[in-house]
């Protein structure tokens, strides 16, 4: 609506142009491990350049935490597939990354 203010300059009432995002029910983070010793850790590369850097995380974790069993996987895509979930299931912890 356009109105005349005291200064005679038009005044506009304008509508909000924005969309909205749906509500999301979220859960808290998964409890942390006390230690990585004796644990299995998956290092997942979702795809991107400089693969060597992400690949080096797994052996470096094992070197830093004796008894830690870390494995690296390059998926080459962004999506969470059944195949990926099946890979992750046996592991106690997961590091997911995209090293560009």
């Amino acid at each position, binding site marked *: 609506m356009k109105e005349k203010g005291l200064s005679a300059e038009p005044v506009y009432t304008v509508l909000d142009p924005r969309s909205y995002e749906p509500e999301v029910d979220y859960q808290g983070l998964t409890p942390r491990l006390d230690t990585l010793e004796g644990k299995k850790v998956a290092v997942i590369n979702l795809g*991107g350049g400089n693969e060597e850097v992400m690949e080096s995380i797994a052996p*470096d974790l094992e070197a830093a935490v004796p008894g830690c069993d870390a494995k690296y996987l390059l998926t080459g895509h962004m999506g969470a597939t059944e195949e990926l979930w099946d890979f992750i299931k046996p592991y106690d912890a997961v590091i997911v990354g995209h090293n*560009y």
Partner: protein
Amino acid sequence: MESFDTPGLLSVADKTALRDGVRGIRQVPTPMDTSLTKIPKEYIPKFIDALTRPLTEEEKKSGTYTPPKHEGILMTGTYDEVQEAFKGKLRDTPFGGPWAEMTDGLPVVPPTEERVAKMLTGTSHDPDEEIVFGGFAGRGGKHIATVKKVAINAVMAGCTPEMLPAVLAIAESGACVGYPGDSSFGNMYVASGPYAKEIGMNAGFGILASNNPANKTLERACQLMGINLGGCLWGIGCLERTGSMHWGTIFAENPDTPWETLNVHHGYKPDESILLFFGMKAELVSFQNIEPLSCETLEDNQPGTPAHAIAALRTGTNQKSAILLFTPDTAKYWAKKYDFAGTMRKFQEWVWKNVTWEAGKWYKNYWFATRHLSSFYKSRGTGTMQLNADHFDIPLDTMVPMFDSPESVTIIVAGGSGDAWTWGFGRPKAILIDKWR
């Protein structure tokens, strides 16, 4: 990765995880240094910490995230106050921005209730009908708008009610929402069918020029919808390194073509109007003027040959689809001289078969080498001449088509009289404008 964009990247990852139902995911930015061959040792304790440090009370919480609804009236004020409100609190970083909140940086037409009501006369659709924006491949997250919200943005852009069906078709395509990563994803639209002329779109000289009201306000509506309806927030959800030259560029096909028009080619009737939407790094280079065959005849003065087009398209590095655009005169000349007359398909097939790379070059392509081989092959499909799992053992000098299929090559006729052609990339999707009338 660590960079000046780190806050933006962390924010995007956080928001993406929240949409998937997990809030406050722990993140470790890693160095953006392409000379590295292994992770620097000081980062390993950070990973260990993220996996073992006990959760805070906040991190343990479950709940419901309720984003604001943005309904109804935004504000009341003078023209200048309206502009400041839409510009909002500018987002700024040391190396990017500032970016306006709800505009493309330009003043907008105040979207009053009266103007929006008038705009809505341009469609028979219910103002409360929902239109969902999903961002690029859904990565921008789901955003819910309505026909009325589209109309609000159309008013802001300066569109007329007659243009609203096209604006709604652009909304259906997802508008310009950008990419939450490094690549610069362009968006381009071509209108085909009688509707383009009805609303005064330009299909002749200066199709990419700046002062055709229909072309420019539709382009602007696309950009505004990307920001306000699609979640394109530069520096937060949209992190393209440079942005694109074609950000909602829109023009009309010139029906003076030696082939069928684009609406017919895509299975519609001649009196049906469509928008061809090009996403995925859509781009067009400037019109080419290559050396003429000779200056003896007007015909031989035409620039370029199909061989030039092939050479140009071969320079693409990550494109599954191509665009060739001709002025009507050049289209008719090439169709006649190079035996491409008839339907568009003949020309498409010729381009598809001849734009090839050596298999060895494909193996070195960034997107081929850095993606998991099986994933790449799956996305390319099997059973075609495209490089796929059947071709693991082919000689490295085997020529393989760059594009998925002949239909990946779009031939557009547009522009004024005289000779010119250009090329680019982009995968088309046809959207019927008429259903939004």
